[in-house]
């Protein structure tokens, strides 16, 4: 038994597959086994249409698998009613989307606080936590800015802060650098590196090899089939054991 087997898994997929009922029927994800442990930084690379988003939606409880079992943070979520899946989604998963999905009429702070509405955070505790999350992504100085006045990189940082403010077990990112230029993208990836170093579990999908190179662990996907792409580097020293 290796040391890393003692780290509890955040994601355990066993023979999970997803077939979109047609016509024509599309098997976007073939039966897949995947384990992601706490503190892992996993990147899924694959060409367009290979099934990356399908996988991420299943992991994020936005979609149900056609078959197989999924344990999230120790909870078997395959058979859970929608109500409980929604609560888990709000409480244990943070999402970062390619298109940011910020509300245009709310300030950065208000956008971050939006994540606290549904998970039962008391109103009195919200502002401080949201400010802390914004400072964590390096946006202390722009808390009251509207998204329209922020740069692309800053907007994505607000989205990251919003994902982090609920202290999730897992951060899911769907092409987070897709709408950013390479310099801005690099600085955002540095942020993810530091979050990873602090122990956050991250699963990111991308079709950029350059982005993939920074990750601790790479998985490639093509035509709905997952293949372990090897480890880029050993787990960072700060990862929990």
């Amino acid at each position, binding site marked *: 038994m290796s040391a890393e087997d003692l780290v509890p898994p955040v994601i355990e997929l066993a023979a999970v597959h997803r077939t979109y009922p047609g016509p024509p029927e599309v098997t976007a994800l073939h039966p897949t086994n995947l384990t992601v442990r706490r503190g892992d930084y996993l990147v899924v690379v694959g060409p367009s249409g290979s099934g990356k988003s399908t996988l991420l*939606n299943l992991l*994020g409880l*936005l*979609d149900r698998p056609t078959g197989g079992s999924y344990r999230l943070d120790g909870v078997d979520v395959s058979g859970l009613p*929608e*109500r*409980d899946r*929604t*609560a*888990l*989604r*709000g*409480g*244990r998963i943070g*999402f970062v*989307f390619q*298109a940011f*999905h910020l*509300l245009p*009429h*709310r300030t950065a702070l208000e956008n971050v606080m*939006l*994540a606290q*509405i*549904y*998970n*039962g955070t008391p*109103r009195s505790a919200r502002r401080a936590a949201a400010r802390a999350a914004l400072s*964590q992504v390096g946006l202390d100085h722009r808390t009251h800015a509207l998204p329209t006045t922020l740069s692309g990189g800053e907007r994505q940082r607000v989205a990251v802060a*919003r994902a982090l403010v*609920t*202290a*999730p*077990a897992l951060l899911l990112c769907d092409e987070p650098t897709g709408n950013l230029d390479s310099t801005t993208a690099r600085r955002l990836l540095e942020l993810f590196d530091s*979050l990873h170093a*602090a*122990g*956050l579990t991250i699963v990111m999908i991308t079709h950029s090899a350059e982005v993939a190179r920074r990750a601790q662990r790479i998985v490639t996907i093509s035509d709905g089939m997952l293949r372990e792409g090897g480890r880029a580097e050993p787990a960072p020293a*700060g990862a929990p054991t």
Partner: protein
Amino acid sequence: MRWRRDRRVPERSTLGVRDLAAEATAGILQRPARSLLTTLGTVLGVGAFVAVLGLTSTAAGQISSHFDALKQTTVTVTDVGDGRERDKDAPAPVAFPGDADQRVTALNGAVGAGVFWPVSLSKPVIGASVAVTARSSGNAGDLPVYAASAGLFGAIEPTVRVGRVFDRFHDRRGERVAVLGAAAAARLGISQLHAQPAVFINGAAFTVVGIIDDAERLPELLLGIIVPRGTAERMYRPPDPTISPAQMVIRTRLGAAQLIARQAALALRPDRPDLLQATPPADPHQLSDSVSGELTGLFLTLAAICLVIGAVGITNTTLVAVLERVGEIGLRRSLGARPRHIAAQFLTESTVLGTVGGLTGTALGVGVVLTVALVRDWTAVLDPATVLPAPLIGSVVGMLAGLYPALRAATTEPLEALRR
């Protein structure tokens, strides 16, 4: 910094009332101009509703106002004669018997009654002194002279400014006393009674016993000199029913006027009721009903149509908002919102829009009623039972209007919503 996280995860997603209100308000204020326009239909509908009901009750309320109360408690009986008294030299006496006042006040519902007629004088000379002649400037010959029974003062309830009014004994004994109307007194230059002033009518002196004012049931009396009917009957010709007939004014209790009008002629002249004609006041119920009934129905229908238009407007706006904010819906679902939270948010937005419309409409409707009342010098009558729940009509309209958009929002698949 080390990444730490809280192991406590809520069993289910929540959405507090204050958060719901805040989110809905933010959604509305996001597009203030559109929200304002959306409420217009509801504003008009609720406004029309309040205005119509307010105006109806205000108009109906005027029936019970002071002026109408007078009209509704006054019955007039006129001596119409029988058409045979054309004989200029020996005209028939007035049809009202000497005890006319007592006969009528004995009827149940009659409070006071009195007879009066204008005394016909040819080329009268009237003045405050015996020296006044037809040519002198003090001649007030154009002042009317009225004969009145003592009961008339009880029927018309004037204010006695100075002195007193004459009574049944003056009347029966035919005494030469006079009561002056305020205007006539001013004309004759009489304001005090210390010096026991008299008025001279064609040389005959009448002692002034009092001056009256404010005779709302018979204001023309204030312009004249009033002498007892018994005195007038002895001194002057009876009036011609075809020109200036004798009349009786009866003051009744509220609601008794119609009944008294039917009974008066027979009570006064059981032998010849046809000589007298009683005129009751217009029936107040018939009046207000015929005026407002059809119009109220029409306007309420218009108000209902406005409300339907308002509802369609809110539905439309909310639906557009749902379609525009699909991305937001997807995001909220990814943040743990349940379909019912999404539905509640949009339903609250539409309900708030409807409520704002309802409040504005109510204020507008009340304003219309107050303005009309002010312009027409009416007392505005607003029933709290219609005004207070009126904003709720807006809320209900807004809520119903939001049902379909809210359902659409709640059933939006988060996956599809996030793909945008």
